[in-house]
């Protein structure tokens, strides 16, 4: 009973605080605090509801329990992180985005390929590519190589489509100006078209961060060595050790946000001149 009361009270306090903060003039402080308070309130209500209604930990563990498990199994989480994120997702991400970038430049050089490959690429980008996972696991074995392969396939087409689109982002006037300077293809590419394509390229890089993690985790559902985040999630669900599952999800959330945030930071540093970044 007491826990339910605490839940209701924290909900009221959080709500009042946010209403009050939102009415204040917008500043860095309020735009940061309002979502933080919202999140904290949700966690408090979650904790209170689990304890107040005595929900079985097999269904939904309390946040405090998850936090304890998180701290206790840091070594397991770290091992899974290295296996899935560093070996699987990151290597696949670099390989996939890199090759998509290079192929996009080739496609851009030949209008025939552009007209043929781009619609096909757009089509493939909308397909459920995760389904390739079992095939690639069969081809490349259970270890991280197959996960990296799934990630490559998943990030390739979104990245390709974005880069090709970006390379077409310059207008006729700018390209004509480069021609009046008698600049070669390479010079135009390096000094005009690649910089102009940067926002599109980064858009692709940002979209694919999440895809890379999803690919690496889902591929592990189809078979993996006895470590990795996807492996841990699927086996712990089977053992009803949901606190460990939630701890893995916390890791996935942190990694996902950090990955995305890192790419966004890089974008800010590299395309500081673009109108969308000034403001």
């Amino acid at each position, binding site marked *: 009973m007491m826990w339910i009361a605490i839940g209701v009270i924290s909900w009221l306090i959080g709500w009042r605080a946010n209403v009050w903060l939102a009415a204040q003039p917008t500043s860095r402080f309020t735009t940061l605090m309002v979502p933080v308070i919202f999140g904290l309130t949700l966690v408090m209500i979650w904790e209170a509801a689990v304890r107040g209604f005595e929900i079985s930990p097999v269904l939904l563990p309390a946040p405090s329990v998850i936090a304890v498990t998180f701290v206790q199994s840091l070594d397991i989480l770290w091992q899974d992180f290295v296996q899935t994120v560093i070996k699987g997702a990151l290597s696949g991400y670099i390989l996939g985005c890199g090759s998509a970038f290079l192929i996009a430049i080739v496609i851009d050089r030949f209008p025939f390929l552009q007209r043929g490959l781009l619609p096909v690429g757009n089509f493939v980008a909308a397909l459920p590519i*995760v389904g390739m996972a079992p095939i690639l696991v069969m081809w490349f074995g259970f270890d991280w190589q197959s996960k990296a392969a799934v990630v490559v396939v998943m990030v390739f087409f979104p990245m390709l489509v974005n880069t090709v689109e970006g390379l077409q982002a310059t207008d006729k006037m700018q390209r004509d100006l480069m021609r009046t300077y008698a600049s070669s293809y390479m010079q135009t590419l390096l000094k005009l078209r690649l910089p102009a394509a940067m926002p599109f390229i980064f858009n692709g890089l940002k979209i694919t961060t999440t895809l890379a993690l999803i690919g690496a985790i889902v591929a592990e*559902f189809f078979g993996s060595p006895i470590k990795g985040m996807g492996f841990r999630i699927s086996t712990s669900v089977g053992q009803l050790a949901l606190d460990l599952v939630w701890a893995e999800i916390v890791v996935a959330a942190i990694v996902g*946000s950090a990955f995305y945030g890192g790419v966004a930071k890089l974008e800010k540093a590299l395309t500081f001149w673009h109108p969308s970044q000034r403001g």
Partner: protein
Amino acid sequence: MRNLFPILTVVAAIFVIWYGAAVALNAPWAKDQAKRAGVELTFSELVADTWSQKKPKLPAPHQVTAEIWKTTGEMVAKGRAFSKRSLIYHSWITLSATMLGFVMGTGFGILLAIGIVYNRVMDMSVMPWVIASQTIPILAIAPMIIVVLNAVGISGLLPKAMISMYLSFFPVVVGMVKGLRSPDQMQLDQMRTWNATAGQQFWRLRLPSSMPFLFASLKVAMAASLVGAIVGELPTGAVAGLGARLLAGSYYGQTIQIWSALIMAAALAACLVAMIGMIQRMTLKRMGMAQ
């Protein structure tokens, strides 16, 4: 039409590469078999063998087509379109979960977007979390949702639809918030000079002008929803659905079955997205917004 020839060339190239890769990948097995049997394979025999193995590493396109026909067309001809061996049955299972999740996700997403646009507190507290949640690999929690809902006694369609909903609702929220905010100050002022109520402003200005944004995000949401349904079928232990076919195929090394399920899923995704595209063109045309 201008693009037809290049596209066909690319598609043809894909098939050529596919057949070539089938030879390259399946050749070791064929050679091994031949060696055990003590016969020497000529090149044409080798190629013929690599294109007709029972459990190839990479099945050739015609094998996959034959398998799809065997599990769809033939089944229909025998009047057993919905037997458990039919791919139509499995597609239907996946499709129903996809559609239910898509409808729930779209509805929920639109409601949330309206709340965000009209309520400053909600905008400031929920919106950052919606954006942050896009950076999280949500599919990872699919097995947990399935198992937990099963434990509560909810099984079958709904758990899969929940995952689909979860995946499809983010693009809708983001797109609709953008769309509902797309009328500029001038148009909003015009509504005010006509003494429009908040309801009229919503129904006659904000909602219509959000339509292009809505359809763009619906396409993304539909594709995501299908992925959600397929992944949602994995932890249920390969009972029914395209995801289950994938898993069962990977357990028993039935590559042809995996590929046919995969092609079926691709066709399903293409059809669904094309359908939304068609509705989009019709709606925008009737609203006078077609480009």
